[in-house]
C-alpha cells in the first residue's frame, strides 16, 4: 500500500515537469508584448521597458527562462507578479476561497446527485425518473455562464435571496450561489450515472439472493444496491475534478469571487508567465493528489481491488 502511494507520487514528477513546460511554452508563445500591454495606451520610456524585461528575464531565450523559473520553484520562490506582489502571497490569499467554493460544490453535487440518482434508478420509468432525466439533460446542455446569469437574475435580483456577486472576504453565504452553479453540470452527470448504476446493480443476481435471504427492502437498498452503485460514481468524481477547476475559472469570473480561478483568468489575459505557470502547477498537483485519493477510496469501496507493492 505504502509502496503503491510512493510509486504514484513518483509518477507525478514527470507529469508536473511536462505540464509546466507546456504551459510555460504556451504563455511564451502568446502574441503581444506583456510589458507594453501593461502600460495600456501610454508608451513608457525604452529604459523602463528594458529594466522591466531584465527583471522578469524576458530578454533571455525561452528555454533559459523556463530553467530559471524551475530553479526558483525548487528554492520555494514562485516569482513575482507584474503588480509586484509575490505569487506565493497571491496563492495564499486566493486558495482558501476557492477551496471553500469547491468543497461546497462537491458537497452539493454528491449529496443531491446521488440521492436523486438513487431514487430515480429505484423508480425507473416513473414520473420522478422521467423528470430527473429531462432536467439533468437540460442542465448538461446549458453552458455554465448562461446558467450563472440565469441564477444571478432569478435568485439574486428577482427573489433577492443572495447577493449577485461575492463581497469582500468571500463570506460563505455569498458562495452558495456560485457553488451551486459550479456543481450543476457535474450534478446532472452524477444523477444520470448513479441512476444507470443503480438500475444495473438492482438487476444483479446477488440483489435477488439478498431478498431471498429475507432481508427487507430498507436494508437491501443501502447495503446491497447503493454501495455497489457508488463505485463508478467515485471513479467519475476523480475525472470530474478537472471540470470543476475549469468551471471555477468561469464561475469565479462571473460572480467576482476572489479565488484562484479569477486570478488565473486575469493572469492569462495579461500574459503573466510566472503567475499562470505557478497556479497551473499547483492545480495539476492537486488534481494528481485527488486522483490518488479517489483510487485509494475505490479500493475501500471494492475489496476486489488491492494495490500490489
Amino acid at each position, binding site marked *: 500500500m505504502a509502496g503503491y502511494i510512493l510509486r504514484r507520487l513518483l509518477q507525478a514528477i514527470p507529469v508536473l515537469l511536462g505540464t509546466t513546460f507546456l504551459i510555460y511554452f504556451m504563455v511564451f508563445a502568446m502574441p503581444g508584448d506583456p510589458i507594453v500591454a501593461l502600460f495600456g495606451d501610454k508608451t513608457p520610456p525604452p529604459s523602463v521597458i528594458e529594466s522591466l524585461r531584465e527583471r522578469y528575464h524576458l530578454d533571455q531565450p525561452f528555454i533559459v527562462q523556463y530553467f530559471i523559473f524551475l530553479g526558483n520553484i525548487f528554492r520555494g520562490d514562485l516569482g513575482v507578479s507584474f503588480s509586484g506582489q509575490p505569487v506565493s502571497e497571491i496563492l495564499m490569499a486566493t486558495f482558501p476561497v476557492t477551496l471553500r467554493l469547491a468543497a461546497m460544490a462537491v458537497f452539493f453535487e454528491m449529496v443531491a446527485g446521488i440521492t436523486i440518482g438513487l431514487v430515480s434508478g429505484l423508480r425507473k420509468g416513473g414520473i420522478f425518473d422521467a423528470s430527473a432525466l429531462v432536467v439533468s439533460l437540460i442542465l448538461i446542455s446549458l453552458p455554465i455562464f448562461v446558467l450563472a446569469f440565469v441564477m444571478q437574475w432569478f435568485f439574486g435580483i428577482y427573489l433577492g435571496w443572495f447577493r449577485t456577486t461575492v463581497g469582500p472576504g468571500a463570506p460563505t453565504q455569498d458562495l452558495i450561489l456560485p457553488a451551486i452553479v459550479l456543481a450543476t453540470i457535474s450534478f446532472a452527470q452524477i444523477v444520470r450515472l448513479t441512476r444507470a448504476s443503480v438500475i444495473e446493480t438492482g*438487476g*444483479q443476481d446477488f440483489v435477488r439472493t439478498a431478498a*431471498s435471504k429475507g432481508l427487507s427492502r430498507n436494508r437491501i437498498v443501502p447495503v446491497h444496491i447503493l454501495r455497489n452503485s457508488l463505485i463508478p460514481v467515485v471513479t467519475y468524481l476523480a475525472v470530474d475534478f478537472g471540470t470543476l477547476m475549469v468551471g471555477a475559472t468561469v464561475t469565479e469570473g462571473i460572480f467576482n469571487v476572489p479565488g484562484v480561478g479569477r486570478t488565473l483568468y486575469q493572469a492569462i489575459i495579461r500574459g503573466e508567465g510566472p503567475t499562470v505557470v505557478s497556479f497551473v502547477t499547483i492545480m495539476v498537483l492537486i488534481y494528481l493528489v485527488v486522483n490518488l485519493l479517489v483510487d485509494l477510496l475505490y479500493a475501500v469501496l471494492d475489496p476486489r481491488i488491492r494495490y500490489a507493492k
Partner: protein
Amino acid sequence: MSEISNGSNVQTERAPGAERPLLEIKNLQVGFNTQDGLVKAVDGVNITLYRGQSLAIVGESGSGKSTTAHAIINLLPGTGHISGGQILLDGQDLTKASKKDMEAVRGRKIGFVPQDPMSNLNPVWSIGFQVEEAIQANGIASGRKAVKKRAIEVLKEAGLGDADRRMKQFPHQFSGGMRQRVLIGMGLAADPQLLIADEPTSALDVTVQRVILDHLESLTRELGTTLLFITHDLGLAAERAEQLVVMYKGKVVESGPSAEILQNPQHPYTQRLVAAAPSLASRRIQATGSIAAAESSMHEGAADAAGEAIDLIATAEARAGALAAAPPAPPAIVVEDLTKVFKIRGSGDFTAVDKVSFQIPKGTTMALVGESGSGKSTVAKMLLKLEDTTSGKIVVGGKDLASVTGKELFNLRSRMQPVFQDPYGSLNPLRNIGNTISEPLFTHKVGTVASRRERVYELLDQVSLPRTLVSRYPNELSGGQRQRIAIARALALKPEIVVLDEAVSALDVLVQAQILRLLADLQAELGLTYLFITHDLAVVRVIADHVCVMQRGKIVEAATTDEVFDNPQQQYTKDLLAAIPGANIELGA
C-alpha cells in the same frame, strides 16, 4: 394439454388428505409484459409437495422452471408477475401475501439456493457479513457474538471446514464450489421448512457438482428439509429427487416418481429428453455393452415416437464400429512435449500445460477432458497458434507449427478452424448470418460473390438451418442456432481439422444432441478431424474415439473411449466418471 396438467398433481404413497402438503401450487400463471403484450412464461402449473420429500422440476431453458421457483418466493425479475393461480405454503396463499409477510416467509420458511455462485454473492461484502445478515434478518440469533457463532456453524455445516478463518474473506477469494457452499449455507441459515435449489451446481465442474449435491442431500435429510430442486439435466434430477415434474414451454407435461418417468416416459417430450440426455445415453451404452443390444433398446422406440430420431447411441455405436473396421489413419495432428508457462506478476511462473503429447489420426475425434483450469483450452489455443508455445512441438499435416509464419500460416489457418464455447460471444452482433458465414471465404479470397453465396446456402443446409436466415442477425437466433452458425462458419473453407472448445457445453440437452449428431454426420461425410474439448465426460462417450484426461496441465490418462470408460486406470478418471449424473439410476432397458 389441460388433461395432462390437471392430472399431473404429484401424488405420494401417503393417502391424500391425511396430511396437508407443505407446498401446493395450483394452476399457476406467470406473465411478463413485453412490447408485444403479455408473454406467459408459466401457464397452469400444478405441483404438490409433501413434507420431507424431494421433488425436481426438469426442463430446458425457457421452459419456465426457474420462473416457477422465483414465483414461489415472489422475486420475479423485471416485469414478471403472477397473473393467476395459487401458491399455498402450509395453507398460506403466497400470491396474496403482503410485502412484509413475504419478507417473513423468505429465508425463514423458504430457503433459496441460486444458480450461479459467481454472481450471487455481493462482491463488496465479506462472506461472514453476508451470512450474518441472513441470520440477523430472520431473528435466528441476536447480539454480535451469537450471530457470528451461528454463521460459523452454518458455514461448517455447508462444508466449509475452516469457516472461522475465512469469515473475513471476500467472495472473489473463494472458488466456485466454495461459494456454492456459502450459498447453500445461507439458504439453510434459518432452518427453513422448504429449500428451493435452482440449478445449484450447473456452473461447477462435475466432480465438485457431485460433492456439493451429496452434501446438500445429506444435509436436507438430516434437517428434515423439504427440497425443491430445479435442473435441466434429467439424469441429475432422477438421481437426486424422488419426484419429477417435467416442464415444457411453461406447462407441466409429465410428473410422477422419478424412476417411473425415466423407465416409462409417456409424453413425447419426456421421451425425447430421456433419449437425448448424454448422461443417460453414456450410461446406457455402458449398461448394454454391445451394438445389437443398443439398437434394440427402448430408446429407438422413444425417438421414433418423438418423430425426430435423435439417437446418440446409434451414432456412438456406428462410430465404434467404423473405428474398428478402418485401417489406422496417418496422424493429422502430432503434439509432443507441449509446454506453456505463464508469468504471473508477483508470484512467479505458472505451468498451465506441462509436457503434453498426443496424436490425432486423420478423420477421428479426440476428446481432451478435464476440469476448469486443467489447461485444456490453452492446448487448443496453442494448436490454433493463437498463443505461443513455451516449448515442445506441434505438427499439423506434416508441418511443424513453429516454423510456419506469414503467408503459410494464413493458408494453414484455412485448414484448421475453431468453434468456441459461447455461442453468444463468438458471433459479431453487427453482421448478418450470411456475412458471418462467408467472412472466411472473403478473407481467403475463395470463389466469386455468386459462388460464395451458393456456399453459404450449402452450409446452412448442412447444419440444418433454413436458407432464409442469411439476412437475419445473431440476436434473433437461439443459442443452438447460433452454435450451428459458428459450426457452419468453421466449415466454410472445407477445413481438415476443427477444434471444438466446449462447443456444446452451453446448450440444452436436446440441442446438444442435435449438434453432436450433426458433428458426427459431418465427420462421416467430409472426413473431418476433431479435437473436442470438454469437461463433460458424458458427451465424450457419444462423440469421441480417443480420450486424453488432463489434470493440472498434465495428461494423466490416454486411451480409446471404450478403454477409458470400461477400465479407467487413474483415480482422477474414476472420479470424473463417477461424477456423471445418473450413475446410480436403474434404467429400464
